[in-house]
């Protein structure tokens, strides 16, 4: 009986997500981009030119691609350059999520910082492991908790209940979400980004960031995002909604495990990046006010 209830709740959540209203999900340009990329004659320069017509979006985009969580060595000054250097799926994700992150910066700075921090760690690890297009792994880290933003914006009543459960019963966000709405943030985030036609290299690490070995593909990428989430919470930068470091998937750890020296190097590199991230958050908030 109870199982049926959970399943029913889950279906209801999914149905509501199809008609999501409170999230400014798709800036008009995003749906246009989908069509444009299908055009075989489309080039980065032409695509960049279209995006650059939107000045606000362009300035936000360039700020993001030049920020320290990507850690890209050289300055990127045009959108077409950004597309060539970081790949179209990264740029598209940043465009599609730009309004969601705007919202996060004003209503949930803790989660914004947690996301930036996770993106930073994921990028460092991806680079160390010589993974192709490490910026894509950073991007997966950046959006791994998108489901939490959706719950907060679209399911306000349930969100308050979930928070209450975390505080009074000391449940983790994930446990409280499952009990309250029958589905947890990784799945909700995964559903949402699937609708944006992003590649599986981005979708699967979001969907499986708490159980990377469940992922049908790209387990190494999922493992990186999984551990980045754990590490950034362990350090205590930003907030994931509850206080606790989430459990480690040991099979995933076997894929990416590192020794004490490597972890120390990582912490040193991270210290510097975190200071830069804090500045970045302040900057982004100030540009919003202007």
């Amino acid at each position: 009986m109870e199982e049926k209830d959970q399943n029913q709740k889950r279906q209801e959540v999914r149905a509501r997500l199809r008609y999501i209203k409170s999230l400014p999900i798709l800036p008009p340009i995003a749906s246009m981009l989908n069509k444009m990329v299908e055009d075989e004659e489309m080039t980065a320069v032409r695509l960049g030119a279209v995006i650059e017509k939107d000045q606000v979006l362009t300035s936000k985009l360039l700020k993001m691609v030049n920020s320290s969580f990507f850690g890209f060595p050289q300055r990127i000054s045009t959108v077409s350059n950004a597309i060539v250097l970081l790949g179209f799926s990264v740029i598209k994700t940043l465009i599609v999520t730009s309004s969601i992150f705007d919202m996060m910066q004003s209503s949930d700075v803790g989660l914004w910082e947690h996301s930036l921090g996770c993106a930073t760690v994921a990028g460092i690890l991806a680079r160390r492991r010589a993974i192709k297009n490490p910026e894509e792994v950073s991007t997966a880290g950046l959006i791994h908790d998108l489901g939490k933003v959706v719950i907060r914006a679209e399911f306000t009543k349930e969100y308050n209940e979930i928070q209450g459960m975390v505080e009074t019963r000391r449940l983790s966000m994930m446990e409280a979400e499952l009990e309250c709405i029958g589905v947890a943030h990784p799945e909700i985030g995964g559903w949402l980004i699937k609708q944006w036609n992003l590649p599986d290299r981005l979708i699967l690490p979001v969907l499986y960031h708490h159980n990377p070995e469940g992922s049908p593909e790209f387990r190494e990428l999922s493992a990186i995002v999984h551990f980045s989430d754990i590490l950034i919470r362990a350090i205590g930068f930003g907030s994931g909604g509850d206080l606790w470091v989430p459990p480690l998937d040991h099979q995933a750890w076997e894929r990416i495990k590192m020794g004490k020296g490597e972890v120390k190097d990582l912490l040193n590199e991270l210290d510097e990046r975190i200071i830069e991230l804090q500045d970045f958050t302040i900057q982004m908030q100030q540009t919003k006010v202007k």
Partner: protein
Amino acid sequence: MQSLPISLAAPGMVLAKAVKTEDGKVLCGPGVELTAELINRLSKSGIHVAIVKGHPIHMPDEKSLAELIKELEARFERVKDDPVLRALMRVIAEHMIEQSKM
């Protein structure tokens, strides 16, 4: 290394990181010693923060090492039986101790 609002930056402090504009253009490289004139110019260019070497200013909301370690332990409370995560916690604690000595 400390991140300071430009209003608290003072002549004689040395930049630990490049000062960059919002879109990533470098205004001033790391290792440069700040002067009154430079601080003035940076602040006129819309720079809000400078990252300087050492830890020249004690901010009122800074936590003590003991508080930091206590918070670290609280974050690991639910995973303390996991040997890998316990080891991770120890490495982070050691790192915090080393940083506090710098």
